[in-house]
């Protein structure tokens, strides 16, 4: 901004003098820019013609590592270490994953394409470029059965009201044990209405549901939830009369007493 201290005309003239060449330069730059843009469009058009349509379609807007990084940061505990392919490590760090979260070694193993050994946890992307996450600790083989038994007992609890989609999850033993334990305690304090036990995008259908959406949780119940210690501490999200509780993946072994 020009400031007039009593020599407004001169200042204005100087400003005009300075601006004229600038505008001219801008016009020149504009012409060059238009030419470059036109060239870029022409090159892009040629590239589209030369490149097979399938190859163009296969180019993702962002690699599966972006979704994997978001999932690691949102759904796993900060103490959980993941073993990842060497060529993915730098991508994940760029995407915001703390370097100390990436192995060697770890409870969760990330492989490219086919899932690694152990239980499948999540998968991001398709085909050979997909990044698959699996957990390496052994499966007792009885976890789903025990979880189903707990889930059915919760369904028999008169203080627990469960909507249809969540009911099936409880009956089928697909709920995370931490969610079941917390629901049992909450129901002893006040009636609980379970709206959903939703699946998380990218996670394997066999992974126990570790998010619970509840209706009408009062402040005292929320205070109890927030006071809990690991591994029972969930992430708490509230919106209006709805509360979502989410526990980190994977659940520690042994909670089901199997």
């Amino acid at each position: 901004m020009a400031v007039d201290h009593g020599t407004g005309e001169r200042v204005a003239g100087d400003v005009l003098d300075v601006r004229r060449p600038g505008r001219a330069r801008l016009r020149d730059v504009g012409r060059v820019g238009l030419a470059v843009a036109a060239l870029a469009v022409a090159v892009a058009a040629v590239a589209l013609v030369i490149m097979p349509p399938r190859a163009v379609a296969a180019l993702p807007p962002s690699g599966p590592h972006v979704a994997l990084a978001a999932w690691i940061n949102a759904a796993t505990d900060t103490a959980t270490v993941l073993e990842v392919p060497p060529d993915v490590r730098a991508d994940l760090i760029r995407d915001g994953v703390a370097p100390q979260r990436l192995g060697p070694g770890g409870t969760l193993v990330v492989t490219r394409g086919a899932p690694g050994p152990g239980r499948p946890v999540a998968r991001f992307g398709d085909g050979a470029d997909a990044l698959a996450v699996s957990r390496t600790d052994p499966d007792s083989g009885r976890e789903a059965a025990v979880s189903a038994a707990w889930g059915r007992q919760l369904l028999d609890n008169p203080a627990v009201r469960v909507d249809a989609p969540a009911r099936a999850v409880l009956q089928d033993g697909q709920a995370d044990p931490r969610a079941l334990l917390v629901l049992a305690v909450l129901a002893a304090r006040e009636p609980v209405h379970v709206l959903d036990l939703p699946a998380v995008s990218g996670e394997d259908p066999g992974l126990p549901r570790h998010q619970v959406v509840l209706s009408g949780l009062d402040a005292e119940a929320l205070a109890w939830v927030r006071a809990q210690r690991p591994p029972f501490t969930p992430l708490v999200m509230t919106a209006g009369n709805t509360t979502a509780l989410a526990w980190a993946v994977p659940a520690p072994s042994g909670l089901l007493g199997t």
Partner: protein
Amino acid sequence: MSRQHLGRVALLAAAALVLAVLLPTTAAAATGTYLRLAHLSPDTPNVDVTVTGFTGRTYQLKGVGYGAVSTYQTVEPGTYTVQMRASADPSAAPLLTGTVRAEEGRAYTAAVLGPRLGRASRC
């Protein structure tokens, strides 16, 4: 949160881990299902223990101190969550520590063991 309160929480957390391990300890009972609490941790203050069934039943044992073994309490068979808190801090939220599966015809002893005891013993 005071340092004293944090200390109590830490002690309870340590003791609670052992509690969860010991809960399946059972003895045969002719009929019914029974549960008692043994406080065997010199490092752990007096505790209130709440066991809550998945089907809704809740039982409480309050003010159990070191060396005490409660009388057996009749409980319904089923799976129970176990919560503990220091008796001296009744306003604190009880901490969830684990589960016990109580079967018909069995008696269970839940033992609280602290760091000094070193290892769990079965009842």
